[in-house]
């Protein structure tokens, strides 16, 4: 069964509606349990659990320490292009926006990567708008081949690809794929994505499955918080993460919490998410999914990011530039979104130390990917009938 079918069958809207009926005593029963199930997770994201955030935080912290220890993996996005054929209402790369459009050539990508390497990053996230004309699969392949010797881990945050194209990406050296559904609500999705390839909800929703079959080792999923009711999104994310963990049991799944804070002037955030709600969502997902990575980007301000670390965060970006070429030539123009944490990577690392955690710059080794590619071949053969 594909995830689209799983989501449909889960009847997430009904589950969401039921949250308002959950009692305080149900929440308290959940908090006394060692291992929580999905119905417990629902209790933790219910309005009734809002007064229990401190207890939830202590539980989430203990789980994270046991599973991940006192470490935070550092990564940086490298924007390849802000060309985009989509017209996502909330996005700085929207095709209708009048911004300087840039696509980095291989030399420029190399220069950007060297800047990140000098800053200490070993884990890079390659990001691009949906513009296959400017950033075709062949260009991505060349970029991966160019960077693979210099970085232990290369992940992609690009437009959804076909299964064969994902295979090409893995073979060229990509080990991770980040792809946010933005919202798991079809109606809201339709409104937010009025035109362009991204309008196809199911093509995006099932991309992780194509990627999993191609052999990606890490998945990052997330909802763009602010587009829709966060509790509905939390339910869908939990179901999605649980599905991916079971379907691709060798793959590490991480959940990101990108929150719309400084949207474009012509866009009103439909369902703003407060700090308190963000924390409740994060804690509940951690308590339900002990092994999921939790990612907080520079969309959030420094103070909040510092405070979130002990609650279960396992990965953080730092010093991010969201305009292509921004590390070599910083500019405010052409950015996808404005970052709110303007600290340098070294400053973020210091802050992580100060709250008692170790910033980790390398947690993977390129030499493993070579063996991994062979394993991926076998896995693809074994799963051939599924694709």
């Amino acid at each position: 069964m594909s995830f689209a079918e799983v989501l449909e069958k889960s009847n997430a809207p009904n589950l969401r509606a039921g949250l308002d009926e959950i009692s305080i005593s149900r929440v308290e029963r959940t908090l006394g349990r060692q291992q929580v199930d999905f119905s417990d997770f629902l209790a933790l994201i219910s309005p009734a659990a809002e007064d229990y955030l401190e207890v939830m935080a202590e539980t989430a912290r203990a789980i994270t320490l046991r599973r991940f220890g006192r470490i935070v993996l550092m990564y940086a996005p490298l924007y390849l292009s802000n060309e985009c054929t989509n017209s996502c209402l909330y996005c700085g790369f929207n095709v209708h926006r009048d911004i300087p459009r840039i696509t980095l050539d291989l030399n420029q990508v190399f220069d950007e990567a060297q800047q990140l390497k000098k800053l200490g990053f070993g884990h890079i996230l390659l990001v691009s708008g949906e513009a296959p004309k400017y950033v075709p699969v062949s260009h991505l392949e060349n970029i991966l081949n160019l960077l693979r010797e210099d970085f232990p881990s290369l992940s992609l945050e690009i437009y959804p690809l076909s299964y064969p194209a994902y295979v090409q990406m893995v073979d060229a050296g990509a080990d991770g794929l980040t792809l946010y559904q933005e919202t798991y609500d079809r109606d809201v999705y339709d409104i937010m994505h009025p035109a362009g390839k991204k309008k196809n909800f199911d093509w995006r929703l099932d991309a992780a499955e194509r990627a999993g079959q191609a052999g990606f080792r890490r998945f990052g999923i997330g909802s763009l918080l602010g587009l829709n009711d966060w509790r509905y999104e939390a339910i869908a994310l939990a179901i999605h993460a649980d599905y991916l963990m079971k379907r691709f049991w060798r793959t590490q799944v991480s959940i990101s919490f990108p929150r719309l804070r400084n949207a474009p002037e012509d866009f009103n955030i439909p369902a703003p998410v407060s700090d308190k709600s963000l924390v409740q969502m994060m804690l509940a997902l951690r308590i339900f999914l002990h092994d999921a990575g939790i990612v907080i980007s520079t969309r959030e301000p420094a103070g909040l990011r510092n405070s979130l670390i002990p609650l279960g965060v396992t990965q953080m970006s730092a010093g991010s530039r969201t305009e292509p070429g921004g590390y070599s030539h910083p500019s405010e123009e052409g950015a996808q979104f404005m970052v709110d944490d303007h600290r340098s990577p070294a400053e973020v690392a210091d802050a992580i130390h100060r709250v008692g955690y170790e910033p980790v710059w390398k947690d993977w080794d390129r030499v493993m990917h070579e063996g991994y590619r062979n394993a991926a071949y076998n896995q693809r053969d074994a799963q051939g009938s599924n694709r």
Partner: protein
Amino acid sequence: MTTKHNDPLIIAGRNFGSRLLVGTGKFSSSEMMRQAVDASASEIVTVALRRVDLTDPQDDMITALQGGDFLLLPNTSGARDAEEAVRLAKLARASGLEPWIKLEVTPDPRYLLPDPVETLKAAEILIKDGFTVLPYMHADPILAKRLEDVGCVTVMPLGSPIGTNRGIRTRDSIGIIIENASVPVVADAGLGAPSHASEAMEMGCDAVLVNTAIATADNPTEMAIAFKMGVEAGRKAYLAGQPAVKKTAEASSPLTGFLGK
């Protein structure tokens, strides 16, 4: 107190004065890690190859571990199959580390449980290639013998899944492994308290490996010392010959005393 001279742990003909092996992951800083390692008095310290850059002389973790009176034992944490583990091991050897390897093949990123098939396969390849292999494994007595048969110098059964702090949940199987082993048995993973380490040693394990419980303690240095003491106490109790556990009380004036001897 056990010492190198009166009760050494012997692995592949090499003597170690401590029966506590420690891991280096999950600490809040490299400095804290080193302090805890020193406090543990461990003579075998494992380091995940994926965490270090062996080509970089300034690598934080390697730098922090320099100058220690212990064997630096690289591990293949993160390897999903035999091929990846073998590649990592060769990378370590090529960088100049001793050809000792703690073999970990854990394809499942959730519970980090070892893959018995790939572990055995990797062990065979590495041993033929001249490595001294210490494999992390399920508490499976047959697998333990198979690993021993191919030349592993220890077996390292898990007490419970890595990082769970649940203690020795595989007690009966570890007992069988100890009974049948002709190489040292090192209880690895899941030991969350010094009492768990004591329990393993009292059972007859030759050593234990601890990481999470020390690294994530509020005071890792003190916890390292506590584990050291727990290991020593458990070993002493084992050597002293613990009295057997009985199901019923034994009266000081036995009911059959009238029968005489």
